[in-house]
């Protein structure tokens, strides 16, 4: 096989690994790094994103739905979606429902959105590592 073809095949494989790691890391924070054998990062990212998301829900923060009307709500939906499984299980985890009339609930809304955005950063890193571009 030609060397160029081998390099292209290898790059394709790496790109596929990057995509798999990114999707896994989005669905379950840290799972992408776990697949890439970055044990400590996987554990820390799961704990950090998970604790932020669960704290947001425990504080009865609001979770934005897909049927957002204005730009702010759409941005909120995008941020919340980053939390992956915590977003999809939000209604089950937050039995009492949101209460954003109180300050604590409002802080919870921000913490949950921060968890989602933080997870997006870890997803980007998982994608890079999967492609063979280990961040410095």
């Amino acid at each position, binding site marked *: 096989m030609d060397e160029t073809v081998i390099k292209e095949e290898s790059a394709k494989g790496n790109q596929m690994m990057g995509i798999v790691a990114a999707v896994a890391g989005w669905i379950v924070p840290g799972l992408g790094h776990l697949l890439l054998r970055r044990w400590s990062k996987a554990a820390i990212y799961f704990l950090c*994103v998970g604790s932020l998301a669960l704290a947001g829900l*425990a504080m009865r923060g609001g979770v934005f739905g897909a049927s957002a009307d204005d730009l702010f709500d759409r941005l909120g939906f995008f941020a919340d979606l980053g939390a992956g499984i915590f977003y999809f299980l939000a209604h089950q985890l937050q039995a009492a429902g949101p209460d954003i009339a109180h300050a*604590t609930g409002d*802080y919870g809304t921000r*913490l949950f959105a921060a968890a989602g955005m933080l997870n997006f950063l870890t997803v980007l890193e998982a994608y890079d590592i999967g492609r063979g571009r280990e961040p410095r």
Partner: protein
Amino acid sequence: MNFLFGNLTHFGALVFFALVISVTFAFLSKRGMAERAQYTLWAFLAFLLVAIGIGWLMYPFSQ
């Protein structure tokens, strides 16, 4: 989780947020545990300092 975070004050939420974000950023941007620990401490203190500083600057407008 409710007993831990149910009645968190604004400052408590800030401390928790600062700690979690600092640790994650340290793992994202640094290698080696010593470097990460140093970065976590630095970023955590910077978060608190900036937040308290902005709080003091905003205080006159709350009256």
